[in-house]
């Protein structure tokens, strides 16, 4: 498997007044082409901050990043060509119809009007959004809105798609539907880098997982290997157990003892 994303010693702190918040504190990651990479961690761990650095939105304080062999500092505009990003808050324009919004996004990547229309139709069909093509977000369901955000994020056929909590707030049906979309995308060759707070989702979707806590990566591996590592004879640990044991102040073994 070839490497598509690589970071080393990635750091970022926010300055608010006199206080300095070290949000990301030396993150080393490796993501391989064609995998679904689950990026987990408690609230405030630094996931969104990491994603915003990887997607050229935020200048790191230190560290190396390369995506598709492009260097973040030297070739940010090359990176922008090959990535897609769906932020925690989405990105669909409340004053535009789904169709208008997709066309605009396609044209910003340099597609002609005709290419843009073809791509927009394909995506609307693929994500089951034809019925909302001519409506504005105020009238969408949560799931429709999220799928439009994702359609917008993948308009340029990104090599790697970053999804920040894509399923938060969705009902179980919509979530399962989104999982299917994500798997389909991966099967078409797109690498997926996603964050989630749902452990069963991370377990079901991810080929590999990294768990972040307080600005650092505390664990990396396949879901199976991570679970096996803490399972004792007879009891099979869940990803939830793994998560709780490695993050935050809460420590199961300490409590039992």
């Amino acid at each position, binding site marked *: 498997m070839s490497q598509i994303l690589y970071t080393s010693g990635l750091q970022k702190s926010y300055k608010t007044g006199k206080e300095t918040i070290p949000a990301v504190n030396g993150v080393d990651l490796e993501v391989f082409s064609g995998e679904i990479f689950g990026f987990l961690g408690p609230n405030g761990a630094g996931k969104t901050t990491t994603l915003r650095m990887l997607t050229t939105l935020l200048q790191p304080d230190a560290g190396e990043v390369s995506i598709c062999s492009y260097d973040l500092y030297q070739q940010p505009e090359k990176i922008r060509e090959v990535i897609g990003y769906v932020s925690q808050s989405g990105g669909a324009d409340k004053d535009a119809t789904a169709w208008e919004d997709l066309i605009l*996004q396609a044209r910003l990547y*340099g597609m002609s009007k005709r290419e843009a229309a073809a791509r927009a139709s394909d995506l609307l069909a693929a994500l089951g959004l034809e019925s909302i093509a001519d409506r504005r977000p105020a009238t969408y369901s949560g799931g429709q809105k999220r799928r439009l955000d994702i359609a917008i994020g993948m308009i340029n056929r990104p090599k790697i798609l970053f999804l920040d909590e894509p399923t938060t707030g969705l009902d179980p049906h919509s979530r399962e539907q989104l999982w299917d979309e994500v798997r389909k995308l991966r099967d078409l060759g797109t690498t997926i880098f996603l964050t989630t707070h749902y452990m069963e989702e991370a377990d079901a979707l991810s080929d590999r997982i990294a768990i972040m806590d307080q600005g650092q990566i505390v664990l990396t591996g396949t879901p199976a290997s991570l679970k096996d590592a803490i399972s004792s004879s007879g009891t099979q640990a869940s990803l939830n157990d793994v998560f709780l044991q490695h993050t935050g102040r809460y420590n199961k073994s300490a409590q039992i003892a």
Partner: protein
Amino acid sequence: MTFLSNLQLFYSRKIREALRNPAFVMMTLTIPLLYLLLFAPMLKRFTGMAEFGSTNVLNFFLPGMIVVLAVFGGLFVGFGMIDEIRQGVIERFRVTPASRLALLFGAVLRDVTSVMVQAIIIIAVAIPFGLKVNIPGLLLIFPLIAMLTAIFSAFSYALALIFKSEDALAPITQGISMPITLLAGFLLPMSLAPGWLQVAAHFNPVYYAIEASRTLMSDHIDAQVVMEAYAFLIPLLGLVSWWAIRKFKTVIS
């Protein structure tokens, strides 16, 4: 080329957004009328007073109103952008290879367009009230008004990116709008002001715009005043744009 095509895309988006907002359209069209209808009838008494120009009081007061439309039409646009930041729309555009300059100026040009429409309305409606128009003068007023709007609009967008909250933007923009319009002589000519106020006015872009627009609407155009206004506003527009674009390019944390 990418810049121009991106600019056109972002401009069309902002225009469409404005046209879809009935309140925005209504206010854009009626504010100039309100200014005129509520204010022009009070001007009769000033006719013939030397401070208000020898020709026609409306020719003296209208430039002030147009300039104030430009200031307000620019200074408060940041609120809309805070909403867009919150929706994630700005980040979404910044992840694409789209030109940041186009992202900013698509919005600025929309604001300039709406102020131009307002200026045209107020002038057209003022003619029956007795406004005397001279076309060459008007042709030199419009670029000044456009630049002034662009200065405040770009400034406001940059403030929105820095503060990202209405709570911070409201006091700042309101705090600026008061002194900047009063200290420009938009109601009373600055020639009536004490010396120190007149000195202060010379740091105020709104002052230059009003002085130049007034002379351009009068019978005797003072070329010196017009030149000064252009000489002040062109570099200022460059400076504010440069600053705002830096905010767009660098971190929006």
